[in-house]
């Protein structure tokens, strides 16, 4: 993506300005909430993309990192009164370490095997957290209602600070992804995705770079987890460690276009509002119609536009096998 056209820069600036003034104009808190979710899932999608779309490791276990981030910062806050911002960084580091620890033995796994291993990983972590009395086990952790403020990473009277913080996080992750994609590391990732053997021949340390991809991905996902905890003020394994969250992250990236920086963002912009609004409009009847539509759309997109919406934009053409 070296040559960014003027058109793209312009549309980027316009989008940025629109996002920034959105909550000042639209006071509807539900709409703000949907945007916050969009940022959060967008960030997780970008994080996933780094290890999945670029390095070829299709992880269905991202929720484990999300949960580790949320739990680490919350636990430190509740038990040791550690400032959540510090907890954020610690959570990211813990997630990165855990990711590396699991990623290392899985270095030879590819494709479906890796995917299932990541599911297994996610479930093992969830089961463990469900039974770990130290961090509340199934009861979860309730964050204390501290006085509002940036320092406490907690706001009660308005969603706006949450909105801008999450947006900033998303921008950070996009920046990281962009830097990676245009750097040598990005090149290595792509080579690894194509073929381990070819990469090795090219002198790339496959194992090491896979771990790097996992660690970056884990750190960013954990940041989103800490944000969630500070936003909802209550976490339990059922809400921050469930498999469907991992699946949603993959779907977002795939829909938008895996392997491209902006792909997951586009995917999130489409899928998150759909899932939220269909639930609001149709969910209360209890008939599952909202999920029906959701499932149908995912199937449709996989079939007709598997390169994602971004693929449409970039006009990459269809890959013929």
């Amino acid at each position, binding site marked *: 993506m070296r040559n960014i056209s003027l058109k793209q820069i312009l549309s980027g600036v316009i989008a940025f300005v629109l996002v920034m003034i959105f909550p000042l104009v639209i006071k509807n808190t539900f709409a703000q909430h949907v945007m916050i979710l969009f940022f959060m899932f967008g960030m997780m999608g970008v994080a996933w993309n780094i290890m999945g779309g670029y390095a070829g490791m299709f992880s269905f276990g991202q929720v484990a990192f999300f949960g580790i981030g949320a739990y680490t910062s919350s636990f430190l806050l509740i038990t040791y009164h550690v400032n959540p911002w510090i907890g954020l960084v610690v959570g990211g580091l813990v997630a990165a370490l855990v990711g590396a620890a699991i990623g290392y033995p899985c270095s030879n796994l590819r494709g479906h095997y890796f995917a299932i291993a990541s*599911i297994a990983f996610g479930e093992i972590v969830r089961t463990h957290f469900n*039974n770990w009395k130290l961090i509340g086990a199934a009861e979860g952790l309730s964050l204390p209602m501290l006085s509002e403020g940036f320092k406490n990473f907690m706001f009660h009277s308005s969603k706006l600070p949450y909105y801008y913080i999450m947006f900033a996080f998303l921008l950070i992750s996009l920046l990281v992804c962009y830097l990676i994609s245009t750097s040598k590391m990005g090149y290595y990732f792509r080579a690894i995705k194509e073929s381990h053997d070819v990469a090795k021949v090219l002198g790339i340390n496959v194992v090491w770079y896979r771990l790097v991809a996992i660690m970056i991905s884990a750190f960013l996902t954990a940041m989103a987890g800490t944000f969630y905890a500070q936003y909802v003020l209550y976490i339990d394994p059922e809400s921050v460690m469930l498999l469907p969250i991992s699946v949603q992250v993959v779907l977002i990236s795939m829909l938008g276009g895996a392997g491209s920086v902006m792909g997951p963002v586009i995917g999130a912009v489409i899928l998150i509002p759909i899932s939220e609004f269909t639930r609001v409009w149709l969910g209360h009847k209890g*008939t*599952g119609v909202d999920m029906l539509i959701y*499932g149908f759309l995912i199937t449709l997109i*996989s079939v007709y536009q*598997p390169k994602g919406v971004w693929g449409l934009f970039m006009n990459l053409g269809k890959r013929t096998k």
Partner: protein
Amino acid sequence: MSEQLLQQLVNGLLIGFMYALIAIGLTLIWGVMNIVNFAHGDFLMLGMFTSFWLYTLYGLDPILSIPFCTALLFVIGVLIYRFVVSKVMSGPMLAQLVVTFGVSIFISNLAVYLWTPDFRLISKPLLSGTWVIGEVQLSIPKTVASIGSVIVSLFVFLFLKKAKTGKAILATEMDREAALLMGVNTERINSFSFGMGAALVGIAGAFLSTYYYIYPQVGGTFGLIAFCVVALGGFGSIEGAFIAGILVGLAQTLGGFFFDPAYKYAIVFMIYLITVWIRPQGLLGW
């Protein structure tokens, strides 16, 4: 203590046979088309509901509903292949992974829409009750399901080895291009295999409905375990799936009993991870 051990062993086998039956269909699809069918658990659910409705509306015992489940699920499988899966066969792997997720969400919520999320149970199946052999209690429905599983697996195994279509399937599994060159209509084989995979898990559903509760999301846990079983056994290998199913059943029950029932699924996943680290292609995979 030892009677408990024997009891748990027996129970582990009984549930293992069920896992094996569920996994066989999945491994077939996986082996032939390299598609992980995330909707597999939902096919199981459809099989269970088919038995339930035949029982409730026509009084047909679940065991007798097996031919219907087989036929219905076969057709559903073929249709889904034709209209959905075949279109992503030439697309990126991610699309293949995700499309069956979409189908899964669609089917399970269609079930919610049509039949409500309530739990159903077949209250008086023909074969129910418990055999008591010494100190061990054998649930009759589970035992019948296990015997059924063995029979069906044997049938599939022989079918693949002896029947013309079966051999074509095996050939496609091993080397798609070569099979194509040898005149095998791989598209037809794909279609047939998908249908067969669905039919097999439909049979499992009929058996399962004799002792487990039925509801739209029932495919969830069973499906997840089935993936571990298949990957453990080695994708594409029927014998592998069968053995792995039993191993997983035993691991779950014995692990839960000796260690902590809360961790029993974690133990299954751990075993999967460890096996795959040591031997990435699974026990009997190639």
